[in-house]
């Protein structure tokens, strides 16, 4: 049941990305291009999602447990560290170079477009290298 739920959430998530315009890298670059022909419309994507989440997340987390599980699995890290800041900066660099963040890139694979397939394969390699860096020692 929780697998079916994960599938449906992934499906809805992808539809949201497509409707919002996030699966168009040129539009994302237009949003990031604040000193040029800035297209601020994509602000409403995160704006809309967070607006809803700020209301819905606290309501959901009032429950003792999720509907299909025994407990909520939430990040427990607190405070800032070099990994968070450095990782976010590297991610921003890659995002600005391509216009793709992980979700839209994975969804766009279905187009069979070589550029996005190359991006996703490199991204998976990057995730692997990051995992190796975090777990060595």
């Amino acid at each position, binding site marked *: 049941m929780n697998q079916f739920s994960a599938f449906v959430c992934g499906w809805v998530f992808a539809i949201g*990305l497509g409707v919002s315009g996030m699966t168009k890298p040129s539009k994302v670059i237009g949003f990031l291009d604040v000193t040029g022909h800035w297209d601020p419309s994509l602000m409403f994507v995160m704006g809309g999602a967070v607006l809803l989440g700020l209301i819905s997340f606290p309501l959901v987390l009032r429950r003792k447990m999720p509907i299909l599980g025994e407990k909520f699995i939430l990040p427990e890290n607190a405070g800032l560290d070099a990994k968070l800041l450095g990782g976010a900066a590297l991610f921003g660099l890659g995002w600005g170079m391509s216009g793709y963040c992980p979700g839209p890139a994975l969804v766009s694979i279905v187009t069979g477009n070589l550029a996005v397939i190359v991006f996703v394969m490199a991204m998976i390699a990057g995730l692997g290298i990051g995992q190796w860096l975090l777990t060595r020692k």
Partner: protein
Amino acid sequence: MTNWLMPLVGGLIIGCAATFFLLFNGRIAGISNIIGGLWSPSVGDVSWRWFFLSGLWAGGLTLLLIKPDAFGQSDFSLFKLSAAGLLVGLGTRIGNGCTSGHGVCGLSRRSFRSLVATLVFMMTAMITVYLGKQ
């Protein structure tokens, strides 16, 4: 004028997906961490990730059928895209999240870490686009 409407609707749909995922599965809908854990050694923790990823692809196929103009071409060289992909994978793994995990879910949880991470990757991406034009 209606320029902002589809992004807003899409954002609300994404917010719904993240809310349902938290309500039903009890987890954060952060794409980079969901994918990063696909090769996790803990056996019971893997299959739902494949189902979520299959859902993303099913959504992509649905978009191809009903809204094929949702997808755009990238203007950059394959070399630049592969470097960018590597950085996105590495950065989101080390920084423990991307636009969905830190941006959508983290801000919804009022996480200070996610707020800082979101500001850092937004600013860095904007500076990167600016420098790329020079």
